[in-house]
């Protein structure tokens, strides 16, 4: 890092003065935790006994055969407790919160995955918990809201702005500036002001540590390429870290191409040319914004990739040429999802399916003695409403209609 909290030209900590001290203390706590020889082993132990780390590296034999190129391995973050890599970061931050003696956590959530993970962590550690979620996402991801509430969290629908992830982040900051004495803000990805990107990256590197060990053990050598979807960038940075020093390993980030880069309805910051440098939500990165610096609306079939900014760590690696970026369209994602489900009996999250798209496009070009790893950041069954919608599944629709009528009848009877 050239300057504290910077990755090349990116990152920093653009925070209101009221949070200066909070960030200072957080930075100190994080440095102390990193220096504490017991901390990382405790984290690994927690992830092993509460979640199911190490998560497997699955050989996708059928997909490999189909594409006839390199062997395809899938890193199974979907098998984590709560169903995604988000658990790694959240449980790590939970240990840090405990260390700092705080009693309440807040978080933003888009897809709901980070919200569920945070609410879960809060239940386990006995923290109070409030989750900010764009009103539109609350509508789209009701099952996750249900579980957060059952886990004891208060879910606050955010009605401002585009009523999605970025507005939930703003709202979480607004809560934090009021309550930072007792409250920790559990940032969900490798974005936001320093030390968040560094901290989240540190916890998520458990993915890369494991994957490196696993591929060497199974395949006998390093993989040719690694594919990861990029929303904020935490799962990508997590797995990439295991291979950054191995220059022979190509690292590929895949963003949300939405309805196509030309359509404007996407969330591609580094693939394509719609993004520009900016400072918002406390950090400097490439944002999807207009000429004035107002943030744009983004679109993706995957709520977890539907975000204006991207990790400063990744922007730096992209500028260095170490990580390359591409985008997968919604349609490509649905096709890759379908193929993966049928071929391997594995249901990637819509977010993760983006990584599969790019891998499928390219794996055939590699020789069979090579291997690639796709990071499956989460499981797709959380996305049933979105996936069933996208497939326009008629019996699902009928089921929901009947269920809706049943509830309507119930409500009528109660009011009689």
């Amino acid at each position, binding site marked *: 890092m050239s300057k*504290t909290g910077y990755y090349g030209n990116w990152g*920093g*900590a*653009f*925070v*209101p*003065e*009221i*949070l*200066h*001290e*909070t960030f200072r203390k957080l930075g100190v706590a994080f440095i102390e935790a990193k220096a504490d020889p017991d901390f990382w082993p405790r984290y690994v132990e927690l992830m092993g006994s509460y979640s199911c780390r190490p998560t497997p590296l699955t050989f996708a034999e059928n997909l490999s055969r189909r594409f006839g190129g390199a062997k395809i391995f899938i890193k199974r973050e979907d098998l984590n407790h709560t169903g995604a890599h988000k658990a790694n970061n959240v449980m790590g931050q939970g240990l840090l919160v405990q260390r700092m003696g705080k009693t309440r956590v807040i978080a933003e959530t888009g897809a709901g995955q980070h919200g569920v993970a945070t609410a879960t962590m809060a239940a386990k550690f006995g923290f109070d918990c409030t989750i900010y979620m764009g009103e539109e996402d609350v509508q789209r991801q009701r099952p996750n809201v249900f579980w957060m509430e059952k886990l004891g969290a208060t879910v606050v629908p955010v009605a*401002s*702005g585009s009523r999605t992830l*970025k507005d939930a982040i*703003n709202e979480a*900051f*607004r809560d934090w*500036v*009021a*309550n*930072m*004495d007792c409250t920790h803000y559990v940032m969900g990805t490798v974005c936001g002001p320093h030390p968040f990107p560094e901290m989240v990256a540190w916890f998520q590197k458990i993915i890369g540590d494991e994957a490196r060990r696993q591929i060497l053990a199974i395949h006998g050598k390093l993989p040719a390429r690694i594919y990861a979807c990029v929303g904020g960038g935490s799962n990508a940075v997590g797995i990439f870290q295991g291979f950054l020093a191995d220059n022979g390993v190509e690292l590929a980030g895949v963003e949300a191409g939405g309805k196509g880069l030309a359509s404007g309805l996407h969330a591609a910051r580094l693939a394509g040319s719609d993004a*520009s*440098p*900016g*400072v*918002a*939500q*406390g950090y*400097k990165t490439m*944002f999807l*914004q207009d*000429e*004035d*610096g*107002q*943030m744009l609306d983004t679109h993706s079939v995957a709520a977890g990739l539907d975000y204006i900014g991207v990790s400063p760590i990744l922007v730096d690696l992209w500028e260095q040429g170490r990580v390359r970026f591409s985008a997968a369209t919604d349609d490509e994602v649905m096709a890759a999802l379908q193929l993966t489900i049928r071929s391997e009996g594995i249901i990637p999250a819509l977010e993760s399916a983006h990584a599969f798209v790019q891998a499928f496009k390219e794996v055939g070009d590699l020789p069979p003695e090579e291997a690639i790893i796709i990071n499956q950041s989460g499981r797709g069954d959380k996305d049933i409403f979105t996936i069933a919608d996208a497939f326009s599944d008629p019996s699902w629709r009928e089921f929901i209609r009947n269920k809706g009528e049943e509830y309507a009848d119930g409500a009528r009877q109660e009011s009689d």
Partner: protein
Amino acid sequence: MTLTMSLSQDIKQVRKSKEILLMTHLVLGYPSFGINRQVITQMVDQGVDIIELQIPFSEPIADGPVILKANHEAINHGVRVGQCLEFAAEMAAQHQIPLLLMTYYNILFRYGVEDFLEQTKENSIRGLIIPDLPPEEGGQYLAACRRLELAPIQIFAPTSGKARMATLAAHGAGFIYCVARRGVTGSPTSFDENFNDYIKRCRQATALPLAVGFGISNRQDVDLLRGKADIAVIGSATIRLVDQQGPEAVGPFIAGLR
């Protein structure tokens, strides 16, 4: 107020004749530039001493619901940064009190920090408040402000320690904006013992005038600040007033504050 000296000197000058100054705030283009004009005229007519003109930004992280909504509606109605700068120039030409720009850093950053500040200077604006730009991140901004004799208003918070206040004060000019409490703009503040200690700490940290903002919305609040602060900042209260009672209500409201 004569506009010949530095902002802080101007403020100290006025303070000689007034026990407390009033600084008000509005969001440019909300609900419209026309109404901004009416509101500013009334503010000036009722003796407001400084006005903060907020250029709307899509992610106003330090603002509460009232100002947040004003920011978003202005942007949704198509308000552009260029228009805001022109409007600020028009107001500065028309009114004889110091005007400040308030916005978030990305607005400057996208415009080009130097260009933005030069334009600001040219428009006869006296200083800026950028709540998401701590001095550590604001090297270029602070240097250009110094060069252009613009006041880069620094912010103290109840959580700022002694050393931190000293650092901030060293970078500041014009006055120090003391955030009265934790939280965002727009909700009430209780001016209790803790607050008095805090203001004492602020005083000790700087010779610059002190403005106190966040949650000041009536005469009682302003009275409590007399003898403690130099400037009382009225933020969300006027926006709320204009929303609810229209721009005509602003004059009487200001008149009743002091």
